[in-house]
């Protein structure tokens, strides 16, 4: 028998720091790969970047001037180097459509998506996890059936249809919520001209400014699309929670907890839940990442000026730099969330730390 259990606490801290460092390195490498992909795409698509800037009736000299400005005569590796350098300093190039800086455009569009996706994920988690647990602890019961049917509906009904019906019922008929857009036009003006913008997220900015009438209006605008996205992610989260929880409840340590005379709520919400958390974190992070990529359909129906509609509009206008800039942002979000969930994963699962 050897007595060599837990390493001392400070070693654990060191391990966590090591993991963070490793995660950041993975992040850097993944992003470089992503930039390479978008760089190559920009070079192989049959859209002439020069032509779309100067127009068809430009002179040879004008074309050459733009070529020089874009650095298109440089060797490929040099072009890539400049591209990466610019991207790292936050310069994703100019939109062909608007001529504006893509980074500053995305900085305006992304907070709208962030706000919507975050609220949707919070709804989905707050409802989905307890619903999944309820279903798992009473398999076959009416509660279980309801959770399963409601979840299945979330899976199988097209989100645009749900969105339209939602607007029709809650906005058109009942008038409980405000319609499409992030704010009523009057408040929009107020937001634009009299309030300080900190984050670009209206709920947070209006609260920080103490403009509670704007806040209330923003809530009544966001509640329906966020509820819709929350419903879709709830469907996924509750199903996963149900199956994870059923699996854990069959484990032997659950019997141990019961043998110790622990009440059922403690067996489920402490003993089993701590283990369910481990895979559930990944599930929630993935569904959050999915919403953050911008749900094109939802954003279209609710006239939500988010990342999804930005990329879609750019795509229809053949505005390649904007599409690729958006793609890079989506990639960064995805990789960052992945890393975050990995880190939380290590916090909740001691086995992943060693």
């Amino acid at each position, binding site marked *: 028998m050897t007595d060599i*259990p837990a390493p001392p*606490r400070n070693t654990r801290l060191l391990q966590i720091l090591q993991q963070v460092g490793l995660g950041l390195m993975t992040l850097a490498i993944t992003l470089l790969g992503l930039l390479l992909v978008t760089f190559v795409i920009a070079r192989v698509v049959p859209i002439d970047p020069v032509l779309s800037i100067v127009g068809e009736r430009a002179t040879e000299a004008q074309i050459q001037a733009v070529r020089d400005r874009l650095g298109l005569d440089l060797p490929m590796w040099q072009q890539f180097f400049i591209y990466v350098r610019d991207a790292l300093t936050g310069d994703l190039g100019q939109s062909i459509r608007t001529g504006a800086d893509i980074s500053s455009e995305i900085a305006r569009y992304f907070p709208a998506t962030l706000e919507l996706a975050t609220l949707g994920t919070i709804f989905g988690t707050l409802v989905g996890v307890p619903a999944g647990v309820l279903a798992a602890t009473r398999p076959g019961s009416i509660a279980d059936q309801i959770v399963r049917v409601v979840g299945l509906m979330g899976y199988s009904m097209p989100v645009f249809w749900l969105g339209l019906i939602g607007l029709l019922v809650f906005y058109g008929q009942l008038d409980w919520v405000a319609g499409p857009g992030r704010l009523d036009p009057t408040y929009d003006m107020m937001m634009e001209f009299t309030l300080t913008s900190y984050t670009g997220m209206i709920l947070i900015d209006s609260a920080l400014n103490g403009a509670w009438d704007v806040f209330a209006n923003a809530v009544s605008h966001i509640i329906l699309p966020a509820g819709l996205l929350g419903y879709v992610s709830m469907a996924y989260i509750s199903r996963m929670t149900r199956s994870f929880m059923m699996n854990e409840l069959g484990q032997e340590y659950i019997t141990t907890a019961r*043998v110790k*005379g*622990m009440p059922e709520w403690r067996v489920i919400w402490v003993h089993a839940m701590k283990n369910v958390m481990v895979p559930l974190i990944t599930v929630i992070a993935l569904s959050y990442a999915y919403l953050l990529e911008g749900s094109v359909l939802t954003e279209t129906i609710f006239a939500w000026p988010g990342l999804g509609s930005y990329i879609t509009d750019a795509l229809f206008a053949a505005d390649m730099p904007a599409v690729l800039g958006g793609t890079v942002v989506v990639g960064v979000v995805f990789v960052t969330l992945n890393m975050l969930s990995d880190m939380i994963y290590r916090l909740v699962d001691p086995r992943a730390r060693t």
Partner: protein
Amino acid sequence: MTLLDVRNLRVTFDTETGPVEAVRGVSFSLGRERLGIVGESGSGKTMTGRAVLRLIRPPGRIEADAMLFDGQDLMRASDREMRALRGKRIGMVMQDPKYSLNPVMTVGDQLTEGLRRRDGLGRRDAEAKALAALEAVQIRDPQRVMEAFPHELSGGMGQRVMIAMMLIPEPDLLIADEPTSALDVTVQAEVLSILDRLVRERGMGLIFISHDLRLVARFCDRVLVMYKGKVVEELEARHLLEAKHPYTRGLLDCLPRIGGPRGPLPALDRSGAWAQ
């Protein structure tokens, strides 16, 4: 004095293809002694042990004419009354500490949980008791084990933690369900001697479930031999090796012996009328 009196215990699982009877009318009684339950896999010995704690999950059902623990009928006890008995008065050690300890909680949290939640002790008192319990199962560095997670322990250490956890509230009855089957032979002996000493010192009743006949013969006072959910023979442990019943004899004949005759071991005869 009788500690536990089980009469006509049945455990049934309702499946899609009809009910499966895991335990079919088992009766036994137990004082402050060591009762062994032996039998091959699937004979219903584990289910018998768990039924005493009423820890059979649906779709399993427990039925019995009576299941008296210290005069109280467990079949009629409410869930709340059962919880008050579990841990406090009846404990259970399971087969493999790899699965029976919660992988994401520290050993210390699991050891003190009962004391703090059930008995309402403060953190300091609970930790002192837990440390003492770890010392009682001969763990040399209890402070460090308290901070460890189960996967950082060896099998033998894990099982000693499990025993310590179950013995902290000084129960009257301990059910040990194959407590050494997942351990190395040398560790087995250590764990058994710890279990033996603690049970003897504290004068508790022990139900020792095992498929190891020789171990049970040495370790227990009395033995139940189970087959297909029934008790086919009950006898004094020291007479186990001279058992008369054909099924028990069959089990004994299957044991290889060092220096015994080589060649294939006899197959167990399961066709006897005793199975019906």
